[in-house]
C-alpha cells in the first residue's frame, strides 16, 4: 500500500522538499534575527547599517533602556490586557451568535433574517466618524472597552464557525439530546470540544489582530499613558522628517536610535509569538472522522 514511499524519486523529492521548506522557514526567521542583532549592537554601527545577522560592538544597552522605560512596560501591560479581554469578548459573542445560526430553519424560525442582519454589517459600516461619535457618546474614550467592544462580534469569524458547526455530524447532537442534554449543554459538551481547531485558529487571528491594532488605540485615547504597545511602536517606527523639527542634536540622535527601536520591536513581538506553540496542538483536523459508525 505504501510502496511509492520507497521509490528513489520519492526520496529525492523528500530531500528537496525539506530543503525548500527549511529555506522558507529561514526567510521567516531571518528578519527577527536581524532585528535582534541590531538591538544588541552599538549605535554607530546601526546608523551605518553595518549589521547583518550578528551584533557589531555587542552591548545590551538598548534592552536595558527599553525594559526600564516605564511607558513601554505600561503599554505592554495594556496590550496584554486588551488582547485577553478582547479574546474573551470575541469568543463569548461569536460562539453565541454562530451556534443558533448554525441550526436549520425548522429549528430556528427567522434564522435567515438574523443571518442577513449580521452579514449586512460585513459590507456596510458607519465609517470612522460615526464610530468615533458612538464611542464618545458611550463615554468609552480612554476606556479599554473602546478597544475591545467594536470587534467583540466578528461576523466573518461567526460565519466560519457557523459552517464548522454545520459540519459536525447531526448524530452526535442527537445522541446528546437522547441523553437529556439541552441546547446549552450540547453546545458546551459536544460542539465546543469538537470545534477546538477552528476556535484556536479564530482565537489566534483575534489575538494577533488586537496585538497589532494601533489606530483605535490612538483615536480613542486622549492620553499617551493609555496607549497600547502597537500604537507606541507605530510612533517609534515611523520615520520622522528631520527637516521639520527643531534640531537639537541630542534629540535627533535619540529619536533615530535604531538599536532601541529594534529592541522595542523585538520585545513587542515576543508575547504574541509565544501564543503560537500553545495553540499549535489544537491545529489538528479530522477529529470527527470516525465518530459516527454505521
Amino acid at each position, binding site marked *: 500500500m505504501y510502496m511509492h514511499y520507497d521509490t528513489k524519486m520519492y526520496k529525492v523529492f523528500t530531500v528537496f522538499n525539506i530543503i525548500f521548506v527549511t529555506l522558507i522557514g529561514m526567510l521567516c526567521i531571518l528578519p527577527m534575527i536581524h532585528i535582534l542583532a541590531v538591538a544588541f549592537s552599538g549605535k554607530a554601527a546601526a546608523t551605518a547599517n553595518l549589521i547583518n545577522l550578528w551584533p557589531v560592538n555587542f552591548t545590551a544597552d538598548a534592552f536595558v533602556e527599553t525594559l526600564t522605560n516605564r511607558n513601554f512596560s505600561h503599554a505592554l501591560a495594556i496590550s496584554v490586557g486588551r488582547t485577553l479581554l478582547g479574546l474573551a469578548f470575541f469568543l463569548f459573542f461569536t460562539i453565541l451568535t454562530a451556534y443558533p445560526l448554525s441550526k436549520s430553519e425548522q429549528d430556528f424560525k427567522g434564522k435567515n433574517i438574523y443571518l442577513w442582519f449580521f452579514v449586512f454589517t460585513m459590507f456596510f459600516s458607519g465609517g470612522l466618524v460615526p464610530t468615533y461619535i458612538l464611542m464618545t457618546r458611550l463615554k*468609552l474614550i480612554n476606556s479599554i472597552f473602546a478597544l475591545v467592544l467594536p470587534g467583540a462580534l466578528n461576523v466573518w469569524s461567526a460565519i466560519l464557525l457557523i459552517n464548522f458547526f454545520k459540519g459536525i455530524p447531526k448524530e452526535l447532537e442527537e445522541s446528546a439530546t437522547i441523553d437529556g442534554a439541552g441546547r446549552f449543554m450540547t453546545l458546551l459538551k459536544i460542539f465546543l470540544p469538537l470545534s477546538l481547531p477552528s476556535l484556536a485558529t479564530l482565537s489566534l487571528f483575534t489575538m494577533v489582530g488586537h496585538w497589532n491594532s494601533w489606530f483605535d488605540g490612538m*483615536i480613542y485615547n*486622549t492620553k499617551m499613558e493609555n496607549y497600547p504597545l502597537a500604537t507606541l511602536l507605530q510612533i517609534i517606527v515611523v520615520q520622522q522628517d528631520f*527637516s521639520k523639527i*527643531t534640531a537639537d*542634536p541630542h534629540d*535627533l540622535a535619540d529619536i533615530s536610535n535604531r538599536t532601541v527601536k529594534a529592541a522595542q520591536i523585538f520585545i513587542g513581538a515576543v508575547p504574541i509569538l509565544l501564543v503560537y506553540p500553545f495553540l499549535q496542538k489544537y491545529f489538528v483536523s479530522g477529529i470527527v472522522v470516525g465518530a459516527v459508525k454505521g
Partner: protein
Amino acid sequence: MLSCRKLLAASLAGAMLIAAAGCGGAGENPEAPEVALTEENSSLKNGHVFYDPPIQLNIARSVGPDAKFKPGQDVNKNDVTDWMLEEFGVKANYMWTTPTTDNAFYTKIMLSISAGEELPEFFSIPGAQAHELIDSGLMMPIDGLFEKHAGAKWKNAVAEVQDPWLAYTREGQVYAYPNFDYAYEHEDVMWIRDDWLEAAGMEAPKTLEDLRAVMDAFIHLDSSVTGFDKVYGFTAALQSNYTTWLGVNPVFGGFGAIPQIWMKDEAGDIVYGSTMPQIKTALAEFKDWIDKSYFPPEVGLMNEVAAYELFTSGRAGITMGATWCYDWPLQDVEKNVPGAKVGAYPIPNGPTGSFLQSGNGTHYQVVLFSKASKNPQVFFEITDYLYDNYAEPEKGSQFEYGFKDGFDYIVKDDGTVSYIEDDIPGGKASVLFFSAPMIPSQKIAIASYLAEGNEPETPAQIQKSVGWNQIFLDAARIVMSQKEYTVYDLFTGAPTPTMVEKLADLKAFEVSNFSNILYGKTGLDEGFDSWLSYWSSNGGVQITEEVRQWYKDAGGE
C-alpha cells in the same frame, strides 16, 4: 442546565449595562471645569497679567518622542504648568494629546469637529494642514491680539522673518500665529571626509569643476586608504524629493534653478522650478555623475536614510546637508571607520559663478485659535512675557540658566551649572510652553559668533551653546556667510483647485521622467521636452496662473 441559565442571565445583564452606559446623554460632562472665567478677573502682578481666581484653558497638543517628563509628571502637571498657575493664574488643561507622527493631531482635530466636540481654545498644527481649518470658518483672526499684546522684543523677532503672515492671511485678516523656527539651521553645507581629502592631496572644492576633480580622486583612492573595494564620491537622496535634507538642491542651484519649488525666473515671473531650462543642464550633469560612478548606481532610489548609511559606513566621501548633520548622523563614520574625519565646507559655486539653495521655510507649525476660545489672549500674554524674560535672559534673572533649577539644568554643589542628563535628578525635562519664544536668527548668530573663537558670555550664549562642537560652529559660520544664496518656496498658501486635482500626477511624472533621464532610458532633450509638454498640457499652466494670482492677492512682491 442551571449554570447555563446563569450564563445567559449574566450576558443579558452585561448587555443592559452597556446600553445603560449609552443613556448618559451628551450634555452632561463629569469633568466640568471648576473655573471658566474671562478677562474680567485679571489684575496685574509683577507687571504682567494675573488671573484671580485662576482661569482654565482647555487646549490640546501633540507630544513628540523628544518630550521628556520628570518622574510623576505629565503634560498636564509639570513644573511649567505649575509655574503658569502661580505666575499667571492660568491652569493649562490639555484635553487630549496625540503623537507627532502620521498626521495624528490632524486626524484627531477633524474627528473632534465632525463629532461636534469642544475644540481646543488654541493648538499647534502643521502649516500645510492649517489652511483647511482656517477656511472652515471655525478659527479666529488674531492680528488684533498680536498687535495688542506683543511687546517690542517679540515684534522684533517676527520682523526678522520675510512675509511672516502671508500664507495665513484671508481678506486682510491673519488667522494663525506661525511657530517660527531658528533660521538657517537647516541650510546646507558640504560635508567631506577630511582624511580622504588629505590622502588625495587635494583642497576642498570651490567650484563644480573642483568638485568633479575631488570626486574623481575619491573613487580612485586605494582600498588600503578607504577600507572598501568600491567607494563613491557623493551620496544623496534623489528618490522623489529633490529639496530634502541630504539632497543635491545646492548643486541644482549652481545651475541657477531649484526643482520642485516656486521661484522667480530671469523675467521675475513665478514659475515651477523643475520646468526651468537650467534643470535640464543639471540633469545632464547628474547623469554624468552616475555614469562615472561619482554617485552610487542606486542614487535615484535612495532616501535620506540610505544616503547617510553610505556616508556613515565609510563608503562615500561627500554629501550636502544641514548644520546639524555632523552631530547626527554623519559623525558616526568616525566611530565605524578608524581614522575617519569629517569637515564642513561652503557649497561650491556652479557654472553661474554662484549657487542657490532651497530654504526650509520659516516655520513648520502654526497656532490656530478656535472661534469658541474664551481666553485667546492668554497665549499672547504668556508668550510675550517669555520673549521679554526667557528668550534672551538677563544675568542674575530668574531664567539665567534655563527654566528651573533641577528641571532642565542643575546648579551643582560647587556652584557650576550642568545641563547633562545624568547630573539632574530624575533626568532633564522638556520645557513645554504653548509656543517656544524663538528669535529666528539667534541660534546660528550665536554659533557663528563662537566659531570665530569668542567665549560664550551672555546667558543666552551659554545656554544655547551647551553640547555644541567645533564642527557645528564651522557649519554655522558657513551658512551665515552664504545666507544670501537661500531662496524660499514662494508659494505657501493652501493647495489651489488645480493643484488638488493634478499636482500629484504631475509630480509623479516629473520624478519618473527625471529618473529616466538620469539613467539614460530616455535622451536628455527628448526626456526634458516630454516633461515640459506634459506639464503644460496636464494642468501646469493653470497651476502657475493660480500660484501667481495667489501671490498677488496675498500681497507678495
